[in-house]
């Protein structure tokens, strides 16, 4: 990888400019579908940036999660919102067109955002925009200056992580931080995912995805890919112990497999949609918490696995977490309660 760090400044400038341009277009393009597509492209480029920053673990999570799952969720939501948005595209005075112009104070005030413009005079709006622009620029300037100030070599906690790596049960530093040194955060993070699913289920009453007959080609591909993706997920869990990879990356691949299977017409058997599914969804938090608490009985601190079997404890936790994360992500995409 030595030649990568030698890449000229130009590559980073292009990557940075692309990110800013994609984000700006995703946030301002008049068509929502286009906005979502640009946002997914933004996620993929961000994945490249992570790889550029030697953050392979983040790249492996950013592309399936930040671009893939988030993109799929956005598209699924958009297809539900679609009827109104189509109307908006047909009639320029309707919602989306207004929204587009609200961000551009230079355009005529009559057609600008209906909610805002009718209450406040144009001068006031322009003043508000100017003040806000000034504030944002001041904020950007100070943030940039602070970042600049921070720019001197510093190793952070690298030394400490490397010193304690042999006791952690894994050889890959990021996995050691996630599953051992800061395992408490990771446990709660899986709880956040589960919480989001409980929240989504508390809102929805029926499955969000319509039961249209799937495309035969897609169905064929999904049947081919799904087993392969499960294999890849298993590989990612295993490889996480000594190289980039781990439960979250594996879980998102598993979740994507679930989404593909669902799109190709596969349904969970009726008997499995009740408590067996819920058990799988809760498994990650439950196993993690159980092991973390059980060690207290052995005289260890909370979540302090004894070095001798830290490796096995982490593997069990990661397997359970992968299953849960995959199931939660697929369920989030499908939306309604099964």
């Amino acid at each position: 990888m030595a030649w990568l760090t030698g890449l000229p400044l130009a590559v980073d400038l292009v990557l940075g400019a692309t990110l800013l341009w994609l984000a700006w277009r995703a946030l301002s393009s008049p068509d929502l579908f286009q906005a979502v597509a640009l946002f997914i492209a933004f996620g993929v480029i961000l994945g490249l940036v992570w790889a550029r920053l030697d953050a392979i673990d983040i790249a492996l999570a950013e592309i399936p999660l930040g671009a893939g799952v988030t993109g799929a969720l956005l598209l699924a939501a958009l297809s539900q919102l679609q009827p109104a948005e189509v109307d908006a595209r047909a009639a320029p005075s309707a919602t989306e067109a207004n929204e587009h112009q609200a961000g551009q104070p230079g355009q005529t005030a009559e057609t600008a955002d209906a909610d805002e413009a009718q209450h406040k005079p144009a001068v006031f709006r322009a003043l508000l925009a100017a003040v806000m622009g000034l504030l944002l620029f001041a904020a950007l300037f100070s943030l940039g200056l602070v970042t600049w100030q921070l720019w001197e070599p510093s190793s952070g906690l690298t030394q400490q992580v490397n010193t304690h790596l042999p006791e952690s049960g894994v050889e890959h530093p990021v996995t050691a931080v996630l599953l051992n040194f800061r395992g408490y955060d990771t446990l709660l993070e899986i709880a956040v995912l589960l919480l989001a699913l409980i929240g989504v289920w508390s809102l929805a009453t029926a499955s969000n995805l319509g039961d249209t007959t799937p495309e035969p080609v897609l169905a064929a591909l999904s049947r081919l890919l799904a087993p392969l993706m499960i294999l890849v997920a298993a590989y990612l869990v295993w490889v996480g112990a000594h190289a980039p990879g781990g439960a979250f990356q594996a879980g998102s691949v598993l979740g994507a497999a679930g989404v593909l299977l669902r799109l190709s017409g596969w349904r969970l058997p009726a008997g499995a949609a009740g408590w067996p599914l819920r058990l799988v969804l809760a498994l990650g938090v439950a196993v993690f918490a159980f092991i973390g608490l059980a060690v207290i009985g052995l005289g260890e601190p909370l979540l302090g696995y004894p070095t001798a079997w830290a490796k096995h404890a982490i593997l069990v936790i990661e397997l359970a977490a992968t299953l849960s994360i995959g199931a939660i992500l697929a369920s989030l995409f499908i939306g309604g309660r099964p």
Partner: protein
Amino acid sequence: MLASLSVVLLLAGAAFFLGGSVGMLRFPDVYTRLHALTKADNLGLGLVVLGLMLQAESLAAVGKLFVIWLLLLAASATASQLVASWAQENGFAPWRG
């Protein structure tokens, strides 16, 4: 020798990608654009993968690159088929000269 062959293949692959991208931007309708994307890009990808195989450090890496190529072929073929059949169902007439 191998290195320069690899560079030639990578450059050729990049040229096909460029052609495919230009085609996507310039072609008149969804079907011809799909042609540009799938045909030119798949060939470009094949050349890039071949070029990278020559630089690979182990046989396993060569195998992984080959699998990547196969998977991307299957995915892009399926995706273009989905886009085309959606366009047909929604009454997008093909371009006729």
